[in-house]
Structures are given as structure tokens and as C-alpha cells.
């Protein structure tokens, strides 16, 4: 029991001391990191926004596929040649369409896709409101019409049928 207690204390001490030591070591590590080449940061930005055409939801920057690596090389070459970010993005758009962007672009088709479900929801809510109003408000046109129809039915065939049934009962 005493050994177990000693071991537990040691593990607890390690758990407390390790993060503290890591925090102390951090400033020294930060000091040795070199500032990133701004061109490389632009390459990363553009490539992270481009979709790897042969992968599942991975960007050109994150993917290890051959096509993504070669696309990254094209992006890097263009950035180093001094081409503008928008021109590089347009280069890929003109070849692969808007599929190549990780984020959907704002165009009429995409707007319809985004707004469609909300419009359908609104339409459904309106329909439901209209239906509920008809069910609970007998003064509405269609409700009174339904009642009138049912009265007519009752007064016609139904009444004679009820009478027939009553007559057939042996009192």
C-alpha cells in the first residue's frame, strides 16, 4: 500500500512538472524559428484554397497526391514569377471550373442552392399555417364549404339509410 502511494505521488509529480518544463523551454524555441518567406506564405494561402481534384475534400496544400503536388509546384512557380494572387486563382478556375475552390463561390447557381432550402421551409411554413387556420377556423370559406357538403350528405342518402336501419330494429 505504501509502495502504491509512492508510485502515485511520482506519477502525479511528473504530470505537474512536465508541462511546466515545456512552457519554460518554449521561449528559447521561439527565438530560433526563422521568419517565413512571404512568397511561401502566399503559396500556402493559395494552395490551401484550391481543391485537390483527385482527393476527398483535401486542399492542394494538404494532399500528397501526384496531381496536388504538381499543382502546388505550378502555384509556387507562378508566385515566384510575380503573378498576382487573383490571376493564379483565375488560372485554375478557367481550367477546372469553380469545383477547384474549397469554398463555394458567389454565383447565381450557388445562391439558389443556398437559398432554396430556406425558401422551401418558408413555403412549407406558409402552407402549414394556411392548413391549420382552415382546420380550426370554421368561418373560413373552405371550412364552411366542407361543413355544408357534409350537411348535404347527411340530409340526403345518410338520413334515409339511418331511417332504414331504425325501422329494421325490432322494438
Amino acid at each position, binding site marked *: 500500500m505504501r509502495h502504491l502511494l509512492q508510485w502515485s505521488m511520482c506519477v502525479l509529480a511528473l504530470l505537474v512538472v512536465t508541462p511546466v518544463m515545456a512552457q519554460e523551454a518554449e521561449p528559447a524555441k521561439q527565438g530560433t524559428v526563422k521568419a517565413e518567406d512571404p512568397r511561401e506564405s502566399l503559396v500556402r494561402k493559395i494552395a490551401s484554397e484550391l481543391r485537390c*481534384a*483527385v482527393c476527398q475534400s483535401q486542399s492542394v496544400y494538404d494532399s500528397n497526391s*501526384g*496531381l496536388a503536388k*504538381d*499543382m502546388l*509546384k*505550378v502555384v509556387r512557380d507562378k508566385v515566384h514569377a510575380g503573378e498576382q494572387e487573383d490571376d493564379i486563382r483565375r488560372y485554375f*478556375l*478557367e*481550367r*477546372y*471550373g469553380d*469545383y477547384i475552390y474549397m469554398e463555394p463561390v458567389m454565383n447565381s447557381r450557388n445562391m439558389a442552392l443556398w437559398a432554396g432550402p430556406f425558401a*422551401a421551409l418558408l413555403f412549407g411554413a406558409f*402552407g402549414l399555417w*394556411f*392548413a391549420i387556420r382552415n382546420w380550426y377556423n370554421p368561418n373560413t370559406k*373552405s371550412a364552411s364549404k366542407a361543413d355544408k357538403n357534409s350537411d348535404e350528405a347527411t340530409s340526403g342518402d345518410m338520413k334515409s339509410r339511418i331511417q332504414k336501419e331504425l325501422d329494421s330494429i325490432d322494438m
Partner: protein
Amino acid sequence: MGKLWKFILLGSIVLILVLMGLGLGRDTKKIPTALLEKPAPILRGPALAGTDTIDIADYKGKWILVNFWGSWCGACVGEHPELMRLDRLIKERDDFAVIGVDYKDTRRGAMAFLRRHGTPSYPMVFDPDQKVAIEWGIVRAPESYLVNPDGMIIKKEYGPLVRNWFNTVALPLIEAYNAKKKPGAS
């Protein structure tokens, strides 16, 4: 429920079913090209065999089939007999040319592929780092583009060319183009 509401409800259900049907029929691996009805991009590069430089501009005024392939691509083996047929056809027709682009490949691998399956006489560009393939928006092999005499891309083929491709796919497009270009045609 009024007739109009029934019609709207039925219409909505039909619309949802049609959209679902369209979605199910769509091949998600097939990325629609943005190059259709646009001028063909630059195609200039070293020949697969020899030291020549091949340039699509040298074939201006002709119908050009640009075929992207690689020795690593299994479907390209199935497509090769059709390309060999087209190679025989271009010797009979002045208005039609084929340019092959061997991409993401090694010369050794490509030459071994051609030795095994037949070497066509049409020019082939060697594109090991896919620069030409990316320029043309290629995703997978084999893929092909048909370029008209005005230098416009009018058709993209995803996957291997179908059997008798020229007669079934290219010829109707060529005839439609010629009819449109004929003097007096609207």
C-alpha cells in the same frame, strides 16, 4: 384542400424526385470542364521520342484530338486500339490530326508501353511534371479534347474513347461545323 394546393404539393414532390434522379445519375468523379467552347490552351512541349518541340499552333486550321495518357494508366491500354485506328485515319484525312500527351510518366515506361501496344505515327508531347496536363485541366487518364479548326474546344471525352469514335462522335460535329460555315448558312 383546394385544387391549386394539390397541384403545388404534387409538383413539389415530382420536382424533388426529379432532382434526386439527376443527382443519382451524376458521376461525382467527372469534373465538368470549364474549357468547353473556349480557345484551346497552349500546348507546346518536347516530343516523347526525339528532340523536336511539338506545338499545337502548327496544326491550326485542322480538327485536332488532344489525347492525354500515361503508361501507368490501365484504361489507356483499352483505348489504344482506337487510337491506332485514328492513326490510320489521319493518313487519309487532311483535316484531322491527333496529338498525344504522355503525362506523369517516364520516357522508358512510355516507350515500353508503345512497343507492347503499338506506336502511332502522330506526335506525342512528353509532360513528366503534368504542366501541360494542368494547363488543360486534366484530372485523370485517359482524357481527350476535340479542338475545331478555329482553335475552340468543342468536346471533352472522359475516359477511353468509344469504339469507332471518329464516325460516331467526331464526324457529326465536323459535319455540323461545315454546314454552319458553308456560305449562305444562317
